[in-house]
C-alpha cells in the first residue's frame, strides 16, 4: 500500500528553536521535514535531541525561534485544532469514567463544544465505537485507575481521535508499556490509521516500533536536533509481528541503529570538545 499522497501536509523549513534568551538551550537547529497527507511517519533520535520540542512546534504550542512551519499549506501560529495528541503518560482524568474521558475533547474543540449537550447521544455513540475498535467495549463505565497501563493508553488513543483530527501527534505513547502490550498496541494503532486515514507523526526511541508502524522514518541528530536521514519502509500493510522477522525489516532497523549509535558518539565527543 504505497501512498504517493499529496506532498507536504506538514512542511517544516529550516527551523531553529531556542528555549529562553540567547544563550539558552538550542533544542533544534536547521530542521527540515515534510510529511505527506495520510502518511505515517516516525521520528527517532537520541533522548534530549528535541523530539518533544518538534511535536510542540508542529501543534503550535511552541513558536520557532527561526524558520517556518506550515500545516495544510497555512503557517502555524497558534494551537491547531485539527490535531490530536497523546503522550507516554495517559493523563486520563481519574474522576471521569472512560466514556467521559474519551469525550473530553468534544467539550473543548470547536464546533463540537457548542453542540455538546444537544448532540450528546451521537457523541457518546462515537466514543463507544472508538472504544470498541481498541477492544475496550464493556469498560466504558470504568475509571482509569481500575485499568492496566495498556488499557489506559488505548483509551488515551481514543481520546486523541474522538474529534476526528487530520493530524495525530504521538510522543512515545507506548514507552511505558511492557514489550507484549506494546506490540499489541502497534497492531491497534495501525488498524486505526488504516481505517481512518489521518496523518500521523510518531515519536519513539524503539526502532522496531518505528519500522513496524511508519511509512517513513526520520532520524534526528543529537541536540541541537535536525533530520540527518530519512528511510522509507516499503513493507506491505497491514504489517504483523511476522513482518518484524522479514529480512528487509531487520535490515532497516540495523541501519538506523548504527546511525543513532554514531550520532550519540558524535554528540558525546562534541560535548567533551566543547568543554561544557
Amino acid at each position, binding site marked *: 500500500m504505497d501512498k504517493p499522497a499529496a506532498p507536504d501536509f506538514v512542511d517544516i523549513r529550516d527551523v531553529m528553536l531556542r528555549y529562553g534568551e540567547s544563550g539558552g538551550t538550542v533544542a533544534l537547529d536547521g530542521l527540515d521535514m515534510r510529511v505527506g497527507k495520510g502518511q505515517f511517519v516516525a521520528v527517532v533520535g537520541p533522548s534530549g535531541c528535541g523530539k518533544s520540542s518538534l511535536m510542540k512546534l508542529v501543534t503550535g504550542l511552541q513558536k520557532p525561534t527561526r524558520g517556518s512551519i506550515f500545516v495544510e499549506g497555512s503557517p502555524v501560529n497558534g494551537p491547531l485544532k485539527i490535531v490530536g495528541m497523546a*503522550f507516554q*503518560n495517559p*493523563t486520563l482524568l*481519574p*474522576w471521569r469514567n472512560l466514556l467521559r474521558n474519551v469525550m473530553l475533547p468534544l467539550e*473543548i474543540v470547536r464546533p463540537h463544544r457548542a453542540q455538546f449537550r444537544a448532540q450528546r447521544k451521537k457523541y457518546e455513540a462515537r466514543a463507544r465505537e472508538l472504544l470498541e475498535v481498541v477492544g475496550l467495549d464493556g469498560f466504558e463505565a470504568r475509571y482509569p485507575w481500575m485499568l492496566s497501563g495498556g488499557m489506559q493508553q488505548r483509551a488515551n488513543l481514543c481520546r486523541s481521535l474522538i474529534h476526528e483530527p487530520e493530524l495525530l501527534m504521538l510522543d512515545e505513547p507506548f514507552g511505558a508499556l511492557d514489550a507484549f502490550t506494546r506490540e499489541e498496541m502497534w497492531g491497534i494503532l495501525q488498524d486505526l490509521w488504516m481505517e481512518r486515514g489521518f496523518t500521523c507523526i510518531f515519536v519513539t526511541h524503539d526502532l522496531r516500533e518505528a519500522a513496524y508502524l511508519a511509512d517513513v522514518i526520520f532520524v534526528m541528530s543529537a541536540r541541537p536536533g535536525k533530520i540527518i536521514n530519512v528511510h522509507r519502509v516499503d513493507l506491505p500493510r497491514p504489517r504483523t509481528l511476522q513482518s518484524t522477522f522479514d529480512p528487509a525489516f531487520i535490515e532497516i532497523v540495523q541501519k538506523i541503529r548504527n546511525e543513532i549509535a554514531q550520532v550519540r558518539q558524535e554528540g558525546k565527543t562534541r560535548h567533551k570538545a566543547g568543554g561544557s
Partner: protein
Amino acid sequence: MSPSTFRKLEVAMPWLVIGSSLAIWEAAVRLFAVREFILPAPTVVVNALIAFHEPIISNSLFTLMNTLIGFGIGVGVGLFLGIMIGSSRLVYAGLYPILVGINSVPKAAVVPVLVLWMGIGQPPAITTAFLLSFFPIAVNVATGLATTEPELEDVLRSLGASALDILLKVGIPRSMPYFFASLKVAVTLAFVGAVISETIASNDGIGYLMLQAASQFRTALMFAGLIVIAAMGILTYLFFVLIEQKVTGWATRKQDVMMTGG
C-alpha cells in the same frame, strides 16, 4: 497474634489508651491527694459537666455558631484565593508572600485590633475563626491546581482550550481532594480562632465560660469546657473526613470503589 486479633486490637487501641490514661489520672489524683483547684479527677470533671450542662450547652452552641460562620467565610475566601494563586503566576507572586505574612502573625495578637474595630463578642470571634481557617484551604487548592499534568494541558491547548476551560475541566476537579482534605484541618483551626477570641473579648461562648471558671478557681468546670471544645473539634473533624471520603473517592483509589465501579 493472628491478623484478625491484630485488627481488633488496632481498633481498640485509642480507647485503651484513653481509658488507661483516665484511670491513671484518677488514681494519681486520689493517691497524691491533689487539690481539686489544681487538678480535678476525671469523675469530678464529669460531675461538673452534668451540674453545669445548661450554661455549657448554650455557650458551646454560641462558639459552634461563630466557628461555623467564620469557617464558612474562610471556605469561600480560601477557595477563591487558592484558585487565583494556583492559576496565575502573577497573582501567586503578588499574594503568596502577603498571605504567608498574615498567616504567621499570632492570631491572639490580632484580636485586640479586631476588638478596637468591631467591639467584643461575636464579630471578632467570627473574624478570628475566618483568619485561621482560610489559609490552609487556599494553600491546598493552589497546590491541587499545580498538580495538573503539563502533557494534559498541551493536549487541551492544542484543541483550542482557553485557560478557563482547563481550569474548569481539569484544574478545579483535580484540586477538589486537596480542598476537602483541607476542610478538616481548617474547621479545627476555626475552633481555635473562635475560642481564642472569646477568651480575650467576649461575654459569651465556651472560651468566656472557661475564663470565668478560671477566675473563680472552678478548675473542674474549666476541664469540662476543655472536654466540650475537644468533642466539638473531633466531631466536626470527623464530619469533614466523612464528606471527604464521600466526595473524592477517586483520589484514594479504594479497592471497594473498584468493586462497585464494575
